[in-house]
């Protein structure tokens, strides 16, 4: 994750609201002035709150997942990011520009050149070939046929469809169609790709394969992505950071590890309960401080323990423990030992006891 530039925020979503309904402006005003709840707005104004006070920042090179169940407002939120839906209140800045301040031509240009989008429904034009579909974004920008076909063919090559250029969408499987959708989005070379539940309709095996390919491709090309999903496993697999949404509100934003270790509320806790921790929890979260270890094992020589990095996950730690004849592993950051992973702390990490309780138990 070294290529994420924390200093460059590409999408800055500031306290954005979206209220649907005929009396949406009045309802919005009532929320701002009187702080009505979602339920009160439905009763008094017959309006539905889609997104409520959402703030998030997406940095250059980052894959940002928004996870929520249906009706949580995640699809509305992603459409606010390229103004397919206009916010009722709040601002969305993309590359420092306020989307609501753009005129029609500027907005078109922003969408055409800087923000790609991939849909759950794929939306491939049935009367066009795979190549023509992938080139569609470039075509509407007025790029000459030879050039756009070359660029689109290169994009299709990247998603592994180099041999399918002259086929029609109906001849392709669901997974392949979604690859064409991705190729169409990256053909215009945007910095940001919005993915609206792109893999939800695919079968599990193809889905995993596409998730890995998508992550690899996005990192390789240095793109930023906002990825919507209802599947926490998918969010963890793909996302550098994850936002969890419920009823239009972003409940928690953090890395997968942060969310699994410190769920913000019971809703998130229930969600993460079934998640495999083997690849999520890193050594720095399960290690015990060096002094605690020494107090318990006064005869043990820390210098002779097997060393690993703070980023090693539980799976790797178990492997190291089993290979070694000692029952502890030293965690070293830049040569200095910062903690020790013991068999006990490893088991606590797998089971999910928070690290501070574990330290107290030790």
């Amino acid at each position, binding site marked *: 994750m070294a290529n994420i530039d924390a200093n460059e925020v590409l999408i800055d979503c500031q306290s954005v609201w979206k209220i649907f309904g005929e009396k949406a402006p009045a309802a919005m005003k009532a929320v701002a002035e009187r702080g009505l709840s979602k339920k009160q707005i439905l009763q008094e104004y017959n309006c539905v709150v889609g997104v409520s006070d959402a703030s998030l920042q997406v940095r250059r090179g980052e894959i940002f997942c928004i996870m929520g169940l249906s009706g949580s407002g995640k699809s509305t939120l992603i459409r606010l990011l*390229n103004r*397919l839906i206009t916010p009722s209140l709040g601002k969305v800045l993309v590359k420092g520009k306020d989307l609501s301040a753009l005129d029609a031509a500027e*907005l*078109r*240009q*922003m*969408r*055409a*050149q800087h*923000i*790609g*989008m991939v*849909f759950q*429904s794929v*939306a491939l*034009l*049935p*009367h066009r070939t795979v190549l023509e579909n992938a080139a*569609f*974004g470039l*075509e*509407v*920008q007025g790029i000459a046929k030879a050039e756009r076909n070359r660029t689109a063919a290169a994009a299709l090559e990247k998603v592994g469809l180099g041999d399918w250029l002259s086929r*029609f969408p109906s001849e392709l499987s669901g997974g392949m169609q979604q690859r064409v959708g991705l190729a*169409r989005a990256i053909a*215009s070379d945007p910095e940001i790709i*919005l993915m609206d539940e792109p893999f939800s309709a695919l079968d599990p095996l193809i889905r995993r394969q596409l998730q890995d390919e998508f992550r690899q491709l996005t990192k390789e090309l240095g793109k930023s992505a906002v990825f919507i999903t209802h599947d926490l496993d998918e969010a963890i697999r793909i996302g550098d950071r994850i936002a969890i949404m419920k009823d239009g509100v972003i409940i928690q934003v953090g890395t997968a590890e942060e969310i699994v270790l410190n769920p913000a509320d019971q809703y998130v806790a229930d969600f993460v309960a079934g998640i495999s921790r083997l690849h999520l929890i890193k050594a720095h979260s399960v290690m015990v401080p060096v002094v605690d270890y020494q107090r318990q094992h006064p005869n043990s020589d820390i210098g002779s323990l097997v060393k690993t990095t703070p980023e090693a996950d539980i799976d790797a730690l178990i492997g190291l423990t089993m290979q070694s004849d000692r029952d502890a592993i030293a965690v070293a950051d830049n040569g200095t030992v910062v903690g020790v992973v013991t068999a006990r702390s490893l088991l606590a990490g797998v089971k999910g006891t928070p690290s501070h309780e574990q330290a107290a138990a030790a």
Partner: protein
Amino acid sequence: MESSAFADTFDAWTDSALEWLSDNGEFLFDLVRTMLEGFYEGILWLLELPPFFVVVAVLAVAGWRLVNAWFGALAGIALVICALMGLWPETMSTLALVITATSLALFVGLPIGVIAGFLPALDRLLEPALDLIQTLPPYIYLLPAIALLGYGPATALIATFVVAMPPAIRLTSLGIRMTPHEFIELGHAIGITKWQMFFKIRLPFAMPSIMAGINQSLMMAFGMVVIAGIVGSGGLGETIYGAIRTLDIAKSIDAAIAIVVLTMVLDRITQSAARFAKGGTP
């Protein structure tokens, strides 16, 4: 009787309105008549220019390419039978009438249909008007047309034009409104302009419906063009009308066969063209 007094007054009004129109609009109606007949005669001239077997061959090949080899062969044989019955000139003038009236109906109907597809208000306004046109007995259009344009092909063309227009408007409007939502969203997301949205997204999706409208217009025109035999349209319609007046049953059946052959050939060919527009194979 009071009701008949009411009817008399209404009829008197209608008559004087028509009279006023034909007196004051004479120049205009003469112009319309000249233009319509000019268009019709131009097309007829084109159809009669080559010998009959060339026209038969063209239609048979079109049937073969667009439908299948069987249909092409059958269409060729059926058309040759029309010629053998001595009805080739009448068949060609009926074809010319249908082509002229349908082209005019499409020329007016397609743009109206497109606009109605975008403006639900216009669509709601057109709906009862189109219902009215389609439910009125077709003869109704002939009398006022005769009053204004006189006896001859121009009157037949106007009446046929009126009857052929509604399906083109309806199905075009429907097609434009039926663009799947996700493709509209796709267009916006990739930064499309309004014109591109129409030509690259809405129109391709509307094409099958528009083609069905064109096919329906053509069929309505065939129905009307026979009825218009009464007003001196020329062609098979007049042959049938003449045969009815002289009780020449054999002749009327000959002409009816020719009409059926011509209608079926054009129906199948345009239907297959519609499937082509959908991107499928014939």
